[in-house]
């Protein structure tokens, strides 16, 4: 999978498996959804967490350029003549996500907050394991907690505990992907329509 899709899936995997306890269920699973679920699903599945991609921007502060040539598996074996893995240095991106938690029960709310702060964003930092398509290698991305906001509200005359976590995931796209997504310009059309509003004595460009 390409980047963004990989991070989406990795975030969902990271957040899946959280459980909360109450008087009726000692191990109630916390659902994870991309964006807000339909009302039918929602009513049956409190508590839950939603994942939303807010923004993505090139991380120019992390950008390097050039060709990476590896003939010794990054220094782990003796260089082998005629064997080299060559690729253009990837383009770094920052992906900004909003993770929103929803629960009806105050204990669920606190449990989810505690879990996220103690297990996912320890000291506001964490990491995101992103496996490759073949599941043979895993890249670890930085996962930084940028902001936490409490957004409790009332829904259907009942309390709804809501928390918004804004997080940044450091990512990268291959240079090949980048060049494909930005096709080369083959022609530029300038002033294809001449305006009629040209002062006397002047010529259109």
């Amino acid at each position, binding site marked *: 999978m390409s980047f963004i899709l990989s991070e989406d899936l990795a975030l969902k995997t990271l957040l899946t498996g959280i459980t909360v306890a109450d008087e009726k269920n000692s191990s109630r699973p916390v659902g994870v959804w991309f*964006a*807000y679920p339909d009302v039918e699903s929602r009513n049956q599945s409190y508590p839950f967490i939603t994942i*939303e991609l*807010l*923004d993505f*921007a090139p991380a120019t502060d992390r950008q390097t350029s050039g060709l990476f040539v590896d003939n010794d598996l990054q220094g782990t074996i003796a260089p082998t003549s005629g064997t080299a893995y060559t690729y253009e240095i990837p383009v770094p991106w*920052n992906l*900004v996500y*909003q993770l*929103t938690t929803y629960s009806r029960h105050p204990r669920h709310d606190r449990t989810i907050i505690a879990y996220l702060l103690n297990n996912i964003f320890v000291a506001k930092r964490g990491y995101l394991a992103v496996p490759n398509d073949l599941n043979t290698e895993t890249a670890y991305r930085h996962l930084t907690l*940028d*902001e936490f*906001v409490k*957004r409790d*509200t009332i*829904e259907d005359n009942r309390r*709804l505990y809501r928390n*918004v976590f*804004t997080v940044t995931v450091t990512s990268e796209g291959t240079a090949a992907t980048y060049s494909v997504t930005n096709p080369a310009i083959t022609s530029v059309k300038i002033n294809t329509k001449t305006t009629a509003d040209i002062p006397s004595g002047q010529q259109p460009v």
Partner: protein
Amino acid sequence: MNISIEPYASSGLNSINNTLTSLLKAQAIDAGWPRKYASALQVSIQGSEITIAYPEEFSEQIENLEYGSMDVTPIPVFRTFLEKQKAVIYNSVENSSINLLVDSEIIP
């Protein structure tokens, strides 16, 4: 010779307060915020701190736009503003810092 760049940088930032406020309002409108709330946004610069202010009476609606509400997805403006406008901010700090160095005759 010891010089402090911070006051000059702060002064440079203050000089683009109105520009940043206009950019913030434009970004909110482009993102789909109702004009009523977008035009109430204001950039506030104190020293080297840049914050976004809005009237208390609109806080519920504005925060619902920013963070989303029950059935409405978030339309982030505050959280993406600095990233989108960092070139304007960097240029301001850079210009005021260079002016200081020239005025101080550190750079001839």
